Protein backbone atom coordinates (compact mmCIF):
# COMPACT_ATOMS: atom_id res chain seq x y z
CA UNK A 1 0.00 0.00 0.00
CA UNK A 2 2.83 2.42 0.91
CA UNK A 3 4.51 1.64 -2.37
CA UNK A 4 1.39 2.58 -4.28
CA UNK A 5 1.09 5.85 -2.35
CA UNK A 6 4.68 6.79 -3.20
CA UNK A 7 4.11 6.05 -6.84
CA UNK A 8 0.88 8.02 -7.01
CA UNK A 9 2.51 11.01 -5.28
CA UNK A 10 5.37 11.04 -7.74
CA UNK A 11 3.05 10.65 -10.71
CA UNK A 12 0.97 13.59 -9.47
CA UNK A 13 4.18 15.64 -9.19
CA UNK A 14 5.12 14.67 -12.73
CA UNK A 15 1.74 15.67 -14.01
CA UNK A 16 1.92 19.02 -12.20
CA UNK A 17 5.38 19.71 -13.60
CA UNK A 18 4.38 18.79 -17.12
CA UNK A 19 1.40 21.13 -16.90
CA UNK A 20 3.68 23.93 -15.75
CA UNK A 21 6.17 23.19 -18.48
CA UNK A 22 3.58 23.55 -21.24
CA UNK A 23 1.86 26.70 -20.00
CA UNK A 24 2.02 30.21 -21.32
CA UNK A 25 0.51 33.51 -20.29
CA UNK A 26 -0.38 36.78 -21.96
CA UNK A 27 -0.68 40.16 -20.33
CA UNK A 28 -0.54 43.42 -22.24
CA UNK A 29 -1.70 46.90 -21.43
CA UNK A 30 -1.64 50.14 -23.35
CA UNK A 31 -0.65 52.84 -23.56
CA UNK A 32 2.12 53.48 -21.05
CA UNK A 33 5.43 55.30 -21.19
CA UNK A 34 8.41 53.50 -22.57
CA UNK A 35 12.11 54.18 -22.69
CA UNK A 36 11.85 55.50 -26.25
CA UNK A 37 8.58 57.36 -25.92
CA UNK A 38 8.41 60.57 -27.90
CA UNK A 39 5.64 62.73 -26.50
CA UNK A 40 6.30 65.45 -29.03
CA UNK A 41 5.59 63.04 -31.83
CA UNK A 42 2.48 61.77 -30.08
CA UNK A 43 3.31 58.14 -30.40
CA UNK A 44 1.23 55.95 -28.13
CA UNK A 45 2.99 52.99 -26.54
CA UNK A 46 1.84 49.56 -25.54
CA UNK A 47 3.98 46.96 -23.83
CA UNK A 48 3.72 43.85 -21.70
CA UNK A 49 2.49 44.45 -18.19
CA UNK A 50 5.14 42.31 -16.55
CA UNK A 51 7.76 44.48 -14.85
CA UNK A 52 10.42 41.86 -15.48
CA UNK A 53 9.76 41.99 -19.20
CA UNK A 54 9.63 45.78 -19.19
CA UNK A 55 13.04 45.94 -17.57
CA UNK A 56 14.55 43.62 -20.20
CA UNK A 57 12.80 45.51 -23.00
CA UNK A 58 14.26 48.76 -21.67
CA UNK A 59 17.75 47.22 -21.84
CA UNK A 60 17.19 46.38 -25.51
CA UNK A 61 15.73 49.82 -26.14
CA UNK A 62 18.63 51.64 -24.54
CA UNK A 63 20.91 50.73 -27.45
CA UNK A 64 18.48 51.83 -30.17
CA UNK A 65 17.40 55.24 -31.38
CA UNK A 66 13.97 56.80 -31.13
CA UNK A 67 11.09 56.50 -33.60
CA UNK A 68 10.90 58.64 -36.71
CA UNK A 69 7.76 60.16 -38.16
CA UNK A 70 7.63 61.85 -41.55
CA UNK A 71 4.51 63.21 -43.06
CA UNK A 72 4.23 63.29 -46.84
CA UNK A 73 3.94 66.82 -48.10
CA UNK A 74 1.02 67.81 -50.25
CA UNK A 75 3.32 70.17 -52.12
CA UNK A 76 6.38 69.44 -54.16
CA UNK A 77 8.66 70.64 -51.39
CA UNK A 78 9.33 67.20 -50.00
CA UNK A 79 8.29 65.51 -46.81
CA UNK A 80 7.43 67.48 -43.77
CA UNK A 81 9.14 66.39 -40.58
CA UNK A 82 6.60 66.25 -37.84
CA UNK A 83 8.19 63.90 -35.41
CA UNK A 84 11.45 62.33 -34.61
CA UNK A 85 13.82 62.18 -31.81
CA UNK A 86 15.43 64.55 -29.43
CA UNK A 87 18.47 62.31 -29.84
CA UNK A 88 18.22 63.06 -33.52
CA UNK A 89 17.63 59.62 -35.02
CA UNK A 90 15.53 61.30 -37.69
CA UNK A 91 14.52 64.78 -38.62
CA UNK A 92 14.24 67.48 -36.01
CA UNK A 93 11.04 67.76 -34.08
CA UNK A 94 8.71 70.51 -35.10
CA UNK A 95 6.27 70.01 -32.29
CA UNK A 96 3.42 69.87 -34.78
CA UNK A 97 0.57 67.53 -34.04
CA UNK A 98 0.16 64.68 -36.45
CA UNK A 99 -3.35 63.93 -35.34
CA UNK A 100 -6.13 64.07 -37.82
CA UNK A 101 -6.41 67.57 -39.22
CA UNK A 102 -8.38 69.48 -41.79
CA UNK A 103 -5.87 68.68 -44.51
CA UNK A 104 -7.25 65.12 -44.76
CA UNK A 105 -10.80 66.32 -45.04
CA UNK A 106 -10.16 68.42 -48.08
CA UNK A 107 -12.70 68.05 -50.80
CA UNK A 108 -11.07 65.29 -52.79
CA UNK A 109 -12.47 62.67 -55.07
CA UNK A 110 -12.86 59.42 -53.17
CA UNK A 111 -10.56 56.63 -54.26
CA UNK A 112 -11.86 53.23 -55.31
CA UNK A 113 -9.20 51.17 -53.59
CA UNK A 114 -6.15 51.07 -51.38
CA UNK A 115 -3.28 48.65 -51.93
CA UNK A 116 -1.68 47.29 -48.76
CA UNK A 117 1.58 45.37 -49.10
CA UNK A 118 3.93 43.78 -46.60
CA UNK A 119 7.62 43.11 -47.17
CA UNK A 120 10.69 42.17 -45.14
CA UNK A 121 13.47 44.23 -46.73
CA UNK A 122 16.34 42.38 -44.98
CA UNK A 123 17.87 45.41 -43.33
CA UNK A 124 17.99 47.54 -46.45
CA UNK A 125 19.11 44.99 -49.02
CA UNK A 126 15.67 44.90 -50.64
CA UNK A 127 15.35 47.41 -53.47
CA UNK A 128 12.46 49.48 -52.17
CA UNK A 129 12.56 52.04 -54.96
CA UNK A 130 12.20 49.39 -57.65
CA UNK A 131 9.42 47.59 -55.81
CA UNK A 132 7.53 50.85 -55.36
CA UNK A 133 7.71 51.48 -59.07
CA UNK A 134 7.04 47.92 -60.27
CA UNK A 135 4.34 46.81 -57.90
CA UNK A 136 2.75 49.98 -56.55
CA UNK A 137 3.13 52.26 -59.55
CA UNK A 138 4.97 54.85 -57.50
CA UNK A 139 7.89 56.39 -59.33
CA UNK A 140 10.27 57.60 -56.70
CA UNK A 141 12.36 60.29 -58.22
CA UNK A 142 10.90 63.75 -57.78
CA UNK A 143 7.79 64.94 -56.03
CA UNK A 144 6.37 66.35 -59.25
CA UNK A 145 6.60 62.97 -60.95
CA UNK A 146 5.02 61.33 -57.94
CA UNK A 147 2.08 63.64 -58.03
CA UNK A 148 1.78 63.57 -61.79
CA UNK A 149 1.47 59.82 -61.89
CA UNK A 150 -2.03 58.50 -61.67
CA UNK A 151 -1.86 55.77 -59.10
CA UNK A 152 -3.76 53.79 -56.50
CA UNK A 153 -2.89 54.97 -53.00
CA UNK A 154 -0.86 52.45 -51.03
CA UNK A 155 0.47 51.49 -47.65
CA UNK A 156 3.64 49.40 -47.45
CA UNK A 157 4.21 47.51 -44.20
CA UNK A 158 7.96 47.08 -43.86
CA UNK A 159 9.89 44.69 -41.65
CA UNK A 160 13.64 44.78 -41.00
CA UNK A 161 13.81 48.40 -42.05
CA UNK A 162 16.98 50.10 -40.88
CA UNK A 163 18.11 53.62 -40.08
CA UNK A 164 21.73 54.82 -39.87
CA UNK A 165 22.43 57.81 -37.70
CA UNK A 166 25.21 59.19 -35.52
CA UNK A 167 22.50 60.23 -33.11
CA UNK A 168 21.77 56.64 -32.14
CA UNK A 169 23.10 56.44 -28.58
CA UNK A 170 26.30 54.80 -27.41
CA UNK A 171 25.95 51.16 -26.49
CA UNK A 172 25.41 51.02 -22.73
CA UNK A 173 27.62 48.66 -20.73
CA UNK A 174 26.34 45.16 -20.27
CA UNK A 175 23.60 45.33 -22.90
CA UNK A 176 23.30 42.27 -25.11
CA UNK A 177 23.28 43.09 -28.81
CA UNK A 178 22.00 41.10 -31.76
CA UNK A 179 24.36 40.32 -34.61
CA UNK A 180 24.72 43.01 -37.25
CA UNK A 181 22.85 42.30 -40.47
CA UNK A 182 24.22 44.25 -43.38
CA UNK A 183 25.13 42.23 -46.41
CA UNK A 184 25.89 44.27 -49.52
CA UNK A 185 22.80 45.11 -51.55
CA UNK A 186 22.62 43.97 -55.17
CA UNK A 187 21.18 47.32 -56.17
CA UNK A 188 24.00 49.38 -54.65
CA UNK A 189 23.77 51.09 -51.28
CA UNK A 190 21.48 49.55 -48.69
CA UNK A 191 18.29 51.58 -48.40
CA UNK A 192 17.90 53.60 -45.17
CA UNK A 193 14.16 53.77 -44.54
CA UNK A 194 14.24 57.43 -43.46
CA UNK A 195 16.21 58.47 -46.52
CA UNK A 196 13.87 56.55 -48.81
CA UNK A 197 10.77 58.12 -47.30
CA UNK A 198 12.27 61.59 -47.55
CA UNK A 199 13.48 61.09 -51.11
CA UNK A 200 10.19 59.61 -52.25
CA UNK A 201 7.93 62.06 -50.41
CA UNK A 202 6.15 59.32 -48.49
CA UNK A 203 4.62 59.25 -45.03
CA UNK A 204 6.73 57.22 -42.63
CA UNK A 205 6.41 55.81 -39.17
CA UNK A 206 9.52 53.88 -38.14
CA UNK A 207 10.15 52.47 -34.67
CA UNK A 208 13.38 50.53 -34.13
CA UNK A 209 13.17 47.24 -32.29
CA UNK A 210 16.88 46.86 -31.64
CA UNK A 211 20.31 48.12 -32.52
CA UNK A 212 21.69 46.55 -35.68
CA UNK A 213 24.68 45.02 -33.88
CA UNK A 214 27.85 46.74 -32.82
CA UNK A 215 29.52 48.87 -35.46
CA UNK A 216 33.18 48.69 -36.43
CA UNK A 217 35.41 51.76 -36.40
CA UNK A 218 34.19 54.27 -38.94
CA UNK A 219 30.76 52.70 -39.35
CA UNK A 220 27.64 54.70 -38.65
CA UNK A 221 25.48 53.30 -35.84
CA UNK A 222 22.34 51.57 -37.10
CA UNK A 223 19.12 50.27 -35.65
CA UNK A 224 16.44 48.14 -37.25
CA UNK A 225 12.75 47.48 -36.87
CA UNK A 226 9.33 47.84 -38.43
CA UNK A 227 7.99 50.73 -40.47
CA UNK A 228 4.94 51.90 -42.34
CA UNK A 229 5.57 53.71 -45.61
CA UNK A 230 2.53 55.25 -47.26
CA UNK A 231 1.39 57.54 -50.02
CA UNK A 232 -1.46 58.67 -47.79
CA UNK A 233 -1.41 60.53 -44.45
CA UNK A 234 -0.79 58.50 -41.29
CA UNK A 235 -2.16 59.45 -37.89
CA UNK A 236 -2.75 57.90 -34.47
CA UNK A 237 0.67 56.32 -34.37
CA UNK A 238 1.39 53.60 -31.86
CA UNK A 239 4.41 51.49 -31.05
CA UNK A 240 3.58 48.10 -29.59
CA UNK A 241 6.36 46.29 -27.78
CA UNK A 242 5.46 42.64 -28.15
CA UNK A 243 5.86 40.17 -25.28
CA UNK A 244 9.59 39.52 -24.96
CA UNK A 245 10.59 36.04 -26.06
CA UNK A 246 14.01 36.23 -27.66
CA UNK A 247 14.50 39.71 -29.11
CA UNK A 248 12.66 42.99 -28.59
CA UNK A 249 10.03 43.34 -31.30
CA UNK A 250 8.14 46.60 -31.76
CA UNK A 251 5.10 46.51 -34.03
CA UNK A 252 4.14 49.85 -35.54
CA UNK A 253 0.52 50.89 -35.96
CA UNK A 254 -1.05 53.89 -37.66
CA UNK A 255 -4.35 55.00 -39.11
CA UNK A 256 -4.09 55.56 -42.86
CA UNK A 257 -6.36 58.05 -44.60
CA UNK A 258 -7.23 57.09 -48.19
CA UNK A 259 -8.58 60.21 -49.90
CA UNK A 260 -12.30 60.63 -49.42
CA UNK A 261 -12.68 57.37 -47.51
CA UNK A 262 -12.96 56.21 -43.94
CA UNK A 263 -9.62 55.65 -42.21
CA UNK A 264 -7.98 52.23 -42.08
CA UNK A 265 -5.88 50.85 -39.20
CA UNK A 266 -2.62 49.45 -40.56
CA UNK A 267 0.04 47.55 -38.62
CA UNK A 268 3.48 46.20 -39.49
CA UNK A 269 4.88 43.49 -37.22
CA UNK A 270 7.63 40.89 -37.01
CA UNK A 271 7.54 37.87 -34.70
CA UNK A 272 10.53 35.98 -33.31
CA UNK A 273 11.95 33.02 -35.21
CA UNK A 274 12.22 30.81 -32.13
CA UNK A 275 12.94 31.01 -28.46
CA UNK A 276 15.90 29.28 -26.88
CA UNK A 277 15.67 25.59 -25.98
CA UNK A 278 14.77 26.23 -22.36
CA UNK A 279 11.94 28.51 -23.36
CA UNK A 280 10.66 26.13 -26.04
CA UNK A 281 10.62 23.21 -23.62
CA UNK A 282 8.97 25.03 -20.74
CA UNK A 283 6.28 26.86 -22.72
CA UNK A 284 5.35 24.23 -25.28
CA UNK A 285 6.78 26.43 -28.04
CA UNK A 286 4.35 29.30 -27.45
CA UNK A 287 6.74 32.03 -28.65
CA UNK A 288 4.94 33.33 -31.71
CA UNK A 289 1.45 32.65 -30.36
CA UNK A 290 2.19 34.75 -27.27
CA UNK A 291 3.53 37.60 -29.38
CA UNK A 292 0.63 37.42 -31.84
CA UNK A 293 -1.99 37.44 -29.10
CA UNK A 294 -0.16 40.28 -27.38
CA UNK A 295 -0.34 42.30 -30.58
CA UNK A 296 -4.06 41.60 -31.02
CA UNK A 297 -4.80 42.55 -27.41
CA UNK A 298 -2.85 45.77 -27.67
CA UNK A 299 -4.68 46.74 -30.87
CA UNK A 300 -8.03 46.07 -29.24
CA UNK A 301 -7.08 48.34 -26.35
CA UNK A 302 -5.66 51.05 -28.59
CA UNK A 303 -8.73 51.11 -30.79
CA UNK A 304 -11.27 50.83 -28.02
CA UNK A 305 -11.63 54.60 -28.09
CA UNK A 306 -11.64 54.85 -31.88
CA UNK A 307 -14.83 52.95 -32.46
CA UNK A 308 -14.99 50.56 -35.35
CA UNK A 309 -12.05 50.59 -37.70
CA UNK A 310 -11.22 48.43 -40.65
CA UNK A 311 -7.83 46.90 -39.84
CA UNK A 312 -5.13 45.38 -42.00
CA UNK A 313 -2.13 43.93 -40.23
CA UNK A 314 0.75 42.32 -42.04
CA UNK A 315 4.19 41.11 -41.31
CA UNK A 316 6.84 38.46 -41.00
CA UNK A 317 5.32 35.74 -38.84
CA UNK A 318 8.41 33.53 -39.27
CA UNK A 319 6.08 30.57 -39.69
CA UNK A 320 7.11 27.21 -41.09
CA UNK A 321 3.58 26.44 -42.19
CA UNK A 322 0.43 28.39 -43.01
CA UNK A 323 -1.35 26.19 -40.46
CA UNK A 324 0.62 27.41 -37.44
CA UNK A 325 -1.23 28.18 -34.23
CA UNK A 326 -0.54 31.91 -34.31
CA UNK A 327 -1.89 32.18 -37.86
CA UNK A 328 -5.07 30.33 -36.87
CA UNK A 329 -5.57 32.66 -33.91
CA UNK A 330 -4.88 35.86 -35.85
CA UNK A 331 -7.24 34.67 -38.61
CA UNK A 332 -9.88 34.22 -35.94
CA UNK A 333 -9.26 37.69 -34.49
CA UNK A 334 -9.27 39.18 -38.00
CA UNK A 335 -12.12 37.20 -39.53
CA UNK A 336 -12.09 38.85 -42.95
CA UNK A 337 -8.53 37.72 -43.60
CA UNK A 338 -7.83 36.06 -46.92
CA UNK A 339 -7.11 32.34 -46.63
CA UNK A 340 -3.49 31.85 -45.51
CA UNK A 341 -1.48 30.45 -48.37
CA UNK A 342 1.30 27.89 -48.39
CA UNK A 343 3.21 29.66 -51.15
CA UNK A 344 6.71 30.43 -49.93
CA UNK A 345 7.77 33.99 -49.23
CA UNK A 346 11.13 33.13 -47.72
CA UNK A 347 12.41 30.30 -49.86
CA UNK A 348 9.71 27.66 -49.71
CA UNK A 349 8.46 28.74 -46.27
CA UNK A 350 5.26 30.78 -46.00
CA UNK A 351 6.63 33.22 -43.44
CA UNK A 352 4.73 36.39 -44.35
CA UNK A 353 1.01 36.91 -43.90
CA UNK A 354 -1.71 39.55 -43.83
CA UNK A 355 -4.88 39.68 -41.75
CA UNK A 356 -7.99 41.80 -42.22
CA UNK A 357 -10.91 42.84 -40.04
CA UNK A 358 -13.85 44.84 -41.38
CA UNK A 359 -17.20 45.51 -39.79
CA UNK A 360 -20.77 45.52 -40.93
CA UNK A 361 -21.52 48.66 -42.87
CA UNK A 362 -17.86 49.49 -43.49
CA UNK A 363 -18.25 49.18 -47.29
CA UNK A 364 -14.71 47.86 -47.45
CA UNK A 365 -13.67 44.41 -48.63
CA UNK A 366 -10.63 42.59 -49.90
CA UNK A 367 -10.86 42.55 -53.69
CA UNK A 368 -11.28 39.06 -55.11
CA UNK A 369 -8.01 37.30 -55.92
CA UNK A 370 -6.00 40.37 -54.95
CA UNK A 371 -4.11 38.66 -52.11
CA UNK A 372 -0.93 37.29 -53.63
CA UNK A 373 2.80 36.86 -53.30
CA UNK A 374 4.96 39.37 -55.17
CA UNK A 375 6.86 37.14 -57.58
CA UNK A 376 10.32 38.61 -56.99
CA UNK A 377 12.55 39.22 -53.97
CA UNK A 378 13.97 42.56 -55.19
CA UNK A 379 17.25 41.70 -53.49
CA UNK A 380 15.78 40.78 -50.11
CA UNK A 381 15.60 37.26 -48.70
CA UNK A 382 11.80 37.59 -48.60
CA UNK A 383 9.15 38.09 -51.23
CA UNK A 384 6.42 40.52 -50.32
CA UNK A 385 2.67 40.04 -50.28
CA UNK A 386 -0.08 42.44 -51.17
CA UNK A 387 -3.83 42.80 -51.27
CA UNK A 388 -6.26 45.42 -52.50
CA UNK A 389 -8.97 46.90 -50.31
CA UNK A 390 -11.98 47.80 -52.41
CA UNK A 391 -14.21 50.68 -51.30
CA UNK A 392 -17.80 50.27 -52.33
CA UNK A 393 -19.75 53.38 -53.25
CA UNK A 394 -22.34 54.46 -50.70
Amino acid at each position, binding site marked *: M*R*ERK*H*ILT*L*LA*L*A*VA*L*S*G*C*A*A*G*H*EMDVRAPVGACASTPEAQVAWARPE*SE*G*EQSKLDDWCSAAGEPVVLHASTTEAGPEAVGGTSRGGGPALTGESILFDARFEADVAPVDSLVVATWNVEVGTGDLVRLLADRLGYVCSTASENHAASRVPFVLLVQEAYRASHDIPEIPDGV*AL*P*SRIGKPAEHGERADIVEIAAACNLSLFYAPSMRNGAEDDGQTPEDRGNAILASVPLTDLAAIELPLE*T*QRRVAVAAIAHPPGRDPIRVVSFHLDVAA*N*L*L*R*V*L*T*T*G*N*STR*LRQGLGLANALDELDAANGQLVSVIGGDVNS*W*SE*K*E*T*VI*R*HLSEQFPDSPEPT*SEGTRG*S*YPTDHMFVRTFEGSNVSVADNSYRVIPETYGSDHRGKLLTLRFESD
Partner: protein
Amino acid sequence: MNFSRAAGSIAAIWLFALSCGSAGLRGQETTDSTDGSTWAAVGGAALGAYSGTVLGALGSLIPCTRTYEGPACVRPAAIGGGIIGGLGGATIGAIDASLIGNSFVAGVIGASVGGAALLAVQPFLERWSWGDVGAGAVIGGAVAASGPGAAIGFGAGAIVGVATWQLIPSVKLPDALAVTLFGLAAGGIGGWVWRAIDAKENERGSAGAQPAVLGFSIRTN
Protein backbone atom coordinates in the same frame (compact mmCIF):
# COMPACT_ATOMS: atom_id res chain seq x y z
CA MET B 1 5.48 31.90 -17.79
CA ASN B 2 8.47 34.20 -17.23
CA PHE B 3 12.13 33.24 -17.31
CA SER B 4 12.53 32.82 -13.56
CA ARG B 5 9.55 30.50 -13.46
CA ALA B 6 10.96 28.57 -16.37
CA ALA B 7 14.31 28.25 -14.60
CA GLY B 8 12.45 27.16 -11.48
CA SER B 9 10.66 24.48 -13.46
CA ILE B 10 13.92 23.19 -14.86
CA ALA B 11 15.45 23.14 -11.39
CA ALA B 12 12.42 21.27 -10.12
CA ILE B 13 12.70 18.72 -12.89
CA TRP B 14 16.38 18.28 -12.07
CA LEU B 15 15.68 17.75 -8.38
CA PHE B 16 12.97 15.37 -9.42
CA ALA B 17 15.36 13.45 -11.65
CA LEU B 18 18.10 13.35 -9.02
CA SER B 19 15.73 12.18 -6.32
CA CYS B 20 14.30 9.49 -8.53
CA GLY B 21 17.76 8.39 -9.53
CA SER B 22 18.99 8.15 -5.97
CA ALA B 23 15.81 6.29 -5.13
CA GLY B 24 16.58 3.86 -7.89
CA LEU B 25 20.11 3.34 -6.64
CA ARG B 26 18.90 2.91 -3.10
CA GLY B 27 16.57 0.28 -4.43
CA GLN B 28 19.55 -1.47 -5.92
CA GLU B 29 21.55 -1.31 -2.70
CA THR B 30 18.83 -2.58 -0.46
CA THR B 31 17.72 -5.53 -2.47
CA ASP B 32 19.15 -8.45 -4.27
CA SER B 33 20.35 -7.28 -7.66
CA THR B 34 17.53 -9.01 -9.48
CA ASP B 35 14.72 -8.41 -7.01
CA GLY B 36 12.37 -5.46 -6.90
CA SER B 37 11.52 -3.38 -3.86
CA THR B 38 9.33 -0.51 -2.77
CA TRP B 39 12.14 1.96 -3.26
CA ALA B 40 13.05 0.60 -6.64
CA ALA B 41 9.41 0.84 -7.71
CA VAL B 42 9.18 4.44 -6.48
CA GLY B 43 12.47 5.34 -8.14
CA GLY B 44 11.34 3.63 -11.33
CA ALA B 45 8.06 5.54 -11.29
CA ALA B 46 9.87 8.83 -10.82
CA LEU B 47 12.45 8.15 -13.51
CA GLY B 48 9.81 6.90 -15.95
CA ALA B 49 7.50 9.85 -15.27
CA TYR B 50 10.31 12.35 -15.81
CA SER B 51 11.48 10.64 -18.98
CA GLY B 52 7.97 10.19 -20.39
CA THR B 53 6.96 13.77 -19.61
CA VAL B 54 9.94 15.28 -21.40
CA LEU B 55 9.63 12.87 -24.33
CA GLY B 56 5.89 13.54 -24.63
CA ALA B 57 6.51 17.28 -24.76
CA LEU B 58 9.39 16.93 -27.21
CA GLY B 59 7.52 14.68 -29.62
CA SER B 60 4.41 16.83 -29.72
CA LEU B 61 6.10 20.25 -30.04
CA ILE B 62 6.11 20.59 -33.81
CA PRO B 63 2.85 18.76 -34.60
CA CYS B 64 1.07 20.84 -31.96
CA THR B 65 2.26 24.12 -33.51
CA ARG B 66 0.10 23.16 -36.51
CA THR B 67 -3.05 23.05 -34.40
CA TYR B 68 -5.30 25.77 -33.01
CA GLU B 69 -4.53 24.63 -29.46
CA GLY B 70 -0.76 24.95 -29.84
CA PRO B 71 0.92 24.80 -26.40
CA ALA B 72 -2.31 23.53 -24.87
CA CYS B 73 -1.94 20.49 -27.10
CA VAL B 74 1.59 19.81 -25.81
CA ARG B 75 0.33 19.57 -22.23
CA PRO B 76 -1.76 16.38 -22.57
CA ALA B 77 1.02 14.75 -24.59
CA ALA B 78 3.48 15.51 -21.78
CA ILE B 79 1.08 14.33 -19.11
CA GLY B 80 0.25 11.17 -21.05
CA GLY B 81 3.92 10.44 -21.59
CA GLY B 82 4.61 10.99 -17.90
CA ILE B 83 1.87 8.63 -16.78
CA ILE B 84 2.89 5.87 -19.20
CA GLY B 85 6.56 6.24 -18.33
CA GLY B 86 5.77 6.36 -14.61
CA LEU B 87 3.68 3.21 -14.66
CA GLY B 88 6.27 1.43 -16.78
CA GLY B 89 9.11 2.49 -14.47
CA ALA B 90 7.18 1.46 -11.36
CA THR B 91 6.49 -1.96 -12.83
CA ILE B 92 10.11 -2.46 -13.79
CA GLY B 93 11.38 -1.32 -10.39
CA ALA B 94 8.98 -3.55 -8.52
CA ILE B 95 10.33 -6.55 -10.39
CA ASP B 96 14.01 -5.81 -10.93
CA ALA B 97 15.82 -2.96 -9.17
CA SER B 98 18.94 -3.40 -11.24
CA LEU B 99 17.09 -2.41 -14.41
CA ILE B 100 16.09 0.90 -12.84
CA GLY B 101 19.63 1.41 -11.59
CA ASN B 102 20.90 0.89 -15.11
CA SER B 103 18.35 3.37 -16.49
CA PHE B 104 19.44 5.93 -13.94
CA VAL B 105 23.11 5.55 -14.88
CA ALA B 106 22.16 5.84 -18.56
CA GLY B 107 20.14 8.96 -17.73
CA VAL B 108 23.08 10.60 -15.98
CA ILE B 109 25.30 9.88 -18.97
CA GLY B 110 22.62 11.20 -21.33
CA ALA B 111 22.19 14.34 -19.25
CA SER B 112 25.93 14.96 -19.36
CA VAL B 113 25.99 14.50 -23.13
CA GLY B 114 22.92 16.72 -23.61
CA GLY B 115 24.35 19.49 -21.45
CA ALA B 116 27.75 19.26 -23.13
CA ALA B 117 26.11 19.44 -26.56
CA LEU B 118 24.36 22.69 -25.67
CA LEU B 119 27.60 24.03 -24.26
CA ALA B 120 29.39 23.15 -27.49
CA VAL B 121 26.92 24.95 -29.76
CA GLN B 122 27.07 28.16 -27.72
CA PRO B 123 29.25 30.01 -30.25
CA PHE B 124 26.70 29.37 -32.99
CA LEU B 125 23.62 30.62 -31.13
CA GLU B 126 22.40 34.20 -31.10
CA ARG B 127 20.98 33.90 -27.61
CA TRP B 128 22.27 31.40 -25.09
CA SER B 129 22.00 30.85 -21.37
CA TRP B 130 22.99 28.32 -18.75
CA GLY B 131 19.31 27.46 -18.65
CA ASP B 132 19.71 26.08 -22.17
CA VAL B 133 22.50 23.79 -20.97
CA GLY B 134 20.15 22.62 -18.24
CA ALA B 135 17.39 22.05 -20.80
CA GLY B 136 19.79 20.05 -22.98
CA ALA B 137 20.72 17.95 -19.97
CA VAL B 138 17.08 17.36 -19.07
CA ILE B 139 16.32 16.19 -22.61
CA GLY B 140 19.47 14.07 -22.82
CA GLY B 141 18.71 12.43 -19.50
CA ALA B 142 15.11 11.71 -20.45
CA VAL B 143 16.07 10.16 -23.76
CA ALA B 144 18.91 8.03 -22.38
CA ALA B 145 16.90 6.78 -19.39
CA SER B 146 14.22 5.43 -21.69
CA GLY B 147 16.55 2.81 -23.12
CA PRO B 148 17.08 1.65 -26.68
CA GLY B 149 13.48 2.37 -27.70
CA ALA B 150 14.25 6.06 -28.15
CA ALA B 151 17.18 5.30 -30.46
CA ILE B 152 15.10 2.88 -32.52
CA GLY B 153 12.25 5.39 -32.74
CA PHE B 154 14.63 8.18 -33.65
CA GLY B 155 16.18 6.11 -36.42
CA ALA B 156 12.83 5.00 -37.82
CA GLY B 157 11.45 8.54 -37.59
CA ALA B 158 14.50 9.99 -39.31
CA ILE B 159 14.29 7.49 -42.16
CA VAL B 160 10.57 8.10 -42.72
CA GLY B 161 10.92 11.85 -42.27
CA VAL B 162 13.85 12.31 -44.62
CA ALA B 163 12.37 9.94 -47.21
CA THR B 164 9.04 11.77 -47.34
CA TRP B 165 10.84 15.13 -47.36
CA GLN B 166 12.83 14.05 -50.40
CA LEU B 167 10.02 12.29 -52.22
CA ILE B 168 6.99 14.50 -51.58
CA PRO B 169 7.40 18.14 -52.63
CA SER B 170 4.86 19.49 -50.14
CA VAL B 171 6.77 17.93 -47.22
CA LYS B 172 9.40 20.32 -45.87
CA LEU B 173 12.38 20.00 -43.57
CA PRO B 174 10.41 20.92 -40.41
CA ASP B 175 7.99 18.11 -41.25
CA ALA B 176 10.90 15.67 -41.40
CA LEU B 177 12.15 17.01 -38.08
CA ALA B 178 8.66 16.62 -36.60
CA VAL B 179 8.47 12.97 -37.68
CA THR B 180 11.97 12.31 -36.30
CA LEU B 181 11.17 13.84 -32.91
CA PHE B 182 7.84 12.05 -32.81
CA GLY B 183 9.65 8.77 -33.52
CA LEU B 184 12.14 9.51 -30.75
CA ALA B 185 9.34 10.23 -28.27
CA ALA B 186 7.14 7.31 -29.29
CA GLY B 187 10.13 4.96 -29.19
CA GLY B 188 11.23 6.24 -25.79
CA ILE B 189 7.79 6.11 -24.18
CA GLY B 190 7.12 2.78 -25.87
CA GLY B 191 10.45 1.61 -24.47
CA TRP B 192 9.19 2.03 -20.92
CA VAL B 193 6.13 -0.06 -21.78
CA TRP B 194 8.12 -2.69 -23.62
CA ARG B 195 10.66 -3.01 -20.81
CA ALA B 196 7.87 -3.35 -18.23
CA ILE B 197 6.24 -6.13 -20.25
CA ASP B 198 9.61 -7.77 -20.69
CA ALA B 199 10.29 -7.62 -16.95
CA LYS B 200 6.89 -9.14 -16.23
CA GLU B 201 7.49 -11.96 -18.69
CA ASN B 202 10.92 -12.62 -17.24
CA GLU B 203 9.40 -12.73 -13.79
CA ARG B 204 6.82 -15.24 -14.94
CA GLY B 205 9.45 -17.10 -16.92
CA SER B 206 11.80 -17.46 -13.98
CA ALA B 207 8.92 -18.64 -11.81
CA GLY B 208 7.80 -21.14 -14.45
CA ALA B 209 11.33 -22.39 -15.06
CA GLN B 210 11.61 -23.90 -11.58
CA PRO B 211 12.55 -27.56 -12.10
CA ALA B 212 9.70 -29.94 -11.63
CA VAL B 213 9.99 -31.76 -8.33
CA LEU B 214 8.72 -35.26 -8.06
CA GLY B 215 7.78 -36.28 -4.60
CA PHE B 216 9.43 -39.43 -3.54
CA SER B 217 10.98 -40.90 -0.48
CA ILE B 218 13.69 -43.39 0.11
CA ARG B 219 12.86 -46.05 2.42
CA THR B 220 15.64 -47.73 4.22
CA ASN B 221 15.47 -50.83 6.11
